[in-house]
């Protein structure tokens, strides 16, 4: 997670570097630390350091880290030649390294030679079956080929060991959603909520899945999760507000108005909040909103 202070610091450094204020190395370190993806900038500034022998030798042992970082950024920007050069330098310095092996696998992947990359990763995994990064690369590889069932299989294999990795759970959930396997996706989102109960995004996604599943019980649960999202975001999340409205109308449709346990206030409040929000931020769309809300009300 990148906090707000870290982000402002990053942006400040970035603009400083952009205007020739120096601090490129600090910027690259920060990017690495926060694991943000700004490959074009990393490539540009990283290369400017690497191409300057004086600056490069000033880094000491950090030089190799920079090579790795630039190589990955270059692959991300499809500058395969640059990546290849970096990897070759690293290869010369650390001939036996697995980390360089990983980079080579990634280069193959970037070139699109899937089978070779797959082989490279498989042989690396044989040496060290607990390398998390390579497991994840394999998932990405399967996903890049459009082989979603394969990606699911790899992810499940990975999660069997590293079952506390919430990023992997999230990826799995999203794949399941894209394959319309909502029950499985719901399980993954439950896992995410357990791991981080205060992140509203997971509540929202879980509510979406429950709503899509349908059925009275799921709809009621979905409404609850939409409301928890509303609570956790302080009512700022438009999607959650719409979700509350949709759930309420769907529930009343199913129960034909015999529904006593829910108070009707929530929906009217959500509509009011939506109207207010639209008036403030997109006043030209208010009429669209009104008709949409009306269609919900008609059905109730």
């Amino acid at each position, binding site marked *: 997670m990148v*906090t707000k*202070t870290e982000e402002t610091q990053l942006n400040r450094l970035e603009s400083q570097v952009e205007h020739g204020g120096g601090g490129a190395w600090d910027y690259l370190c920060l990017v690495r630390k926060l694991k943000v993806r700004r490959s074009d900038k990393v490539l540009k500034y990283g290369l400017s350091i690497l191409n300057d022998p004086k600056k490069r030798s000033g880094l000491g042992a950090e030089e190799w880290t920079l090579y790795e970082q630039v190589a990955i950024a270059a692959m991300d920007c499809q500058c395969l030649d640059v990546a290849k050069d970096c990897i070759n330098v690293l290869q010369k310095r650390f001939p036996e390294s697995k980390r360089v092996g990983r980079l080579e696998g990634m280069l193959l992947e970037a070139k699109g030679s899937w089978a070779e990359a797959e082989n490279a990763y498989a042989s690396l995994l044989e040496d060290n079956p607990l390398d998390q990064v390579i497991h994840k690369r394999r998932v990405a590889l399967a996903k890049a080929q459009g082989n979603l069932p394969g990606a699911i299989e790899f992810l499940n294999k990975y999660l069997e060991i590293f079952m506390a990795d919430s990023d992997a759970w999230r990826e799995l959930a999203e794949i399941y959603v894209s394959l319309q396997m909502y029950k499985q996706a719901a399980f993954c989102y439950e896992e995410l909520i357990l791991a*981080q109960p*205060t992140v509203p995004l997971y509540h929202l996604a879980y509510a979406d899945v429950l709503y899509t599943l349908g059925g009275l019980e799921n709809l009621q649960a979905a409404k609850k999760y939409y409301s928890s999202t509303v*609570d*956790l975001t*302080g009512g700022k999340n438009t999607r959650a507000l719409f979700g509350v409205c949709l759930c309420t109308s769907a529930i009343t449709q199913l129960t034909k108005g015999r529904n006593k346990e829910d108070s009707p206030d929530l929906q009217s409040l959500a509509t009011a909040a939506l109207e207010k929000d639209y008036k403030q931020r997109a006043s030209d769309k208010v009429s669209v909103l009104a008709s949409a809300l009306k269609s919900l009300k008609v059905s109730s």
Partner: protein
Amino acid sequence: MGHNDSGGSEKKSSESANDIQTFNAENLQSNMKVIYYSRTFLAIISGVIAGILGFTGLTGFIFYVLIMAITSLGLVAKAKFSVHSYFDSWNRIILDGFFGGLMSFVLFWTFAYDIVHIF
């Protein structure tokens, strides 16, 4: 000198404090770390001050307790007097690091006292 080293790293760890407590474990941990650091820091500083002022016997310990009380107060003030939105219990803010700091306090108290007064 209270709590200026506790910096800005305290984050709101719960969204609201009515019947259900929702804590972010990471933020709670970082808050505790801040408490631990400020206490240790103050224990060392107060040890040096007590030594230089030449407190002996009970006076020194009373001084330590006083400083720790002030720290607690400062931390509570830093938490804007709503302890439950930053910590899960009062004990955290009042007791955590109290005894851990005592050892450092005694050491630095003795050290400063000896250097200034004994020799």
